[in-house]
């Protein structure tokens, strides 16, 4: 089974994020870059499937120079090879452009299974897996909390408000996973050593078969017109309850037109 896992480098979830005044883009230098948390689950699931069914796991990531650290992390968990799409033209790409580039790289490589985390912690849109499957004309099995591989049939379980959906498709398919699916492994020290020697392909936008003009800030379908820092939290009002606390709360709520 040939498996691809698409991963993204995101600013550390706990770090304070800033936008760059010059172009209103996320200042990726301002915070430590880490492997998007949900993508770790995607890598883990790929490795589990590989352990059970054999095959090869390739990590695919589009991102600046330093996103290679993220690919390395996935390789140190046990994946076999990496593909890094890095190009100055890509800066500021929106989800549509990202999906075009990923699809361009993924197609014709014979992957049976393409796995994504269901969202990135920086953009939180959850659209790229669906966009990629649409571009590739593949079935999409999204938000999986369980994946079963049975020959060429892939079945996933998705939790919904009313129960479980069981969705099935024949490979090749695109799957996105949620964090319930597994517990990502920690890379071993041996894995870290081995990762340095694993094959890593570096591609440009042109290599992905995508026109440079159709990606990046210029081609984005949405732009940030303006932004401002969140105002500091204002001091709250402290009401000492001397018997009339309930009334005071009701008055407060009424003044703020909440009741």
């Amino acid at each position: 089974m040939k498996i691809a896992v698409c991963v993204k480098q995101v600013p550390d979830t706990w770090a304070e994020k800033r936008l760059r005044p010059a172009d209103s883009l996320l200042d990726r230098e301002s915070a430590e870059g880490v492997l998007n948390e949900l993508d770790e689950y995607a890598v883990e699931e790929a490795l589990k499937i590989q352990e059970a069914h054999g095959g090869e796991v390739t990590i695919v990531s589009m991102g600046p120079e330093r996103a290679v650290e993220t690919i390395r992390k996935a390789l140190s968990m046990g994946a076999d090879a990496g593909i890094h799409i890095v190009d100055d033209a890509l800066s500021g790409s929106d989800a549509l452009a990202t999906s075009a580039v990923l699809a361009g790289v993924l197609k014709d490589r014979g992957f049976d299974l393409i796995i994504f985390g269901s969202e990135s912690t920086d953009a939180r849109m959850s659209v790229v897996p669906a966009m990629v499957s649409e571009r590739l004309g593949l079935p999409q099995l999204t938000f999986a909390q369980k994946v079963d591989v049975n020959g060429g049939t892939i079945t996933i379980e998705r939790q919904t408000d009313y129960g479980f959906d069981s969705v099935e498709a024949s490979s090749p398919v695109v799957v996105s996973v949620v964090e319930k699916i597994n517990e990502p492994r920690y890379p071993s020290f041996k894995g870290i050593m081995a990762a340095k020697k694993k094959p890593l392909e570096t591609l440009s936008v042109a290599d992905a078969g995508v026109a440079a003009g159709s990606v990046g800030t210029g081609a984005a379908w949405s732009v940030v017109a303006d932004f401002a820092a969140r105002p500091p939290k204002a001091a709250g009002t402290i009401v000492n309850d001397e018997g009339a606390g309930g009334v005071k709360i009701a008055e407060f709520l009424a003044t703020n037109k909440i009741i």
Partner: protein
Amino acid sequence: MRMYSGNPDVPDDVFRDVLIQIRDFVRTRVIPRENEIMSTDEIPADLRAQIADMGLFGFAIPQEWGGLGLDLVQDVELAMELGYTSLSVRSMVGTNNGIAGQVLVDFGSKEQKSRWLPGIASGEIVASFALTEPGAGSNPASLRTTATPDGDGWIINGSKQYITNAPNANLFIVFARVRAQTDKDPGIAVFLVPGEAAGIEVGPHDHKMGQEGSRTADVNFSNVHVGADALVGEDGDAGYRAALTSLARGRIHIAGLAVGTAQRALDESVSYAASATQGGVAIGDFQLVQAMIADMQTGVMAGRALAREAALAYQTGEDRRIAPSVAKLYCTEMVGKVADLAVQVHGGMGYMREVAVERIYRDVRLLRLYEGTSEIQRLIIGAGLVKSAKRKLGS
């Protein structure tokens, strides 16, 4: 002249990733479970499994034998990360990588290494270092456990105490007397004794002041028979030298741990000082509290610089005697003061169980006792300096 050109087995870029990983592991997987470790007096099995899978049981064991092969310059950086959480977690992997494992690495034969080291590196084998005896702690040269020749092997008799990881040890590195002690010759040899050997009795685990999750116990050897291949080093002399070498290296590791724990106590204190209030004022706004924090920060930075310096001097061979003792003495005393201040900054809260600094206060007390008490470090430093001055005068 100092020449340190890095560790060829673990280049800087690999080591960087290892450190990032350990830091992340400590912060996301161990810290949330500190109180569980404390209240159960046990490292949870799943955490131990992760630690073993990662390779932490063999970080200082050479790659040839299945370990990661960190040198001491790197080891001390790792120690600073491990020191940031419950010290019992470090203790679980500490004997394998440190005092016990290094005796094999430095003094074992090829056969001995290939028999034991791969299992030690993977964590399948837990190795314990059995030197201390009642009445022979600071002065191990006076130990009374004996090994007497028997056919082509040896018979070991005696009692050890406070032996870390003894309750689940698969291998004891046992120091025993083979000759009477003289001025020139301590007469001590070191033996590799499998944990399942007949005649070994491990006592109930000790009830300690801190470091819950790490176990020590008495170990009794009565007529324990081991083969000739159990003796470390060709002659009987290697033993005591092994103990001293292993301990000197370990002292720098402990200095690193102390710095890591001091950093944690400091971080806990700073965030507490910034958020806790008295009369509506953050306690961190009181200058007397700021002074405590300043003293803590100063101790941490001085300790960190010293631990790194000592590791470098050890690694290059420049100083393997004075510097390890200096680093252990300063850093473990420093963390004692820092932990005390941390409790002070926390006020009554600092005296309560499940508050990190309360645990730290107890955990770090041990660092000034084992692997040479502070007094013993002072003796090594002072006597060492005077001795070399005398030698210079004499020549």
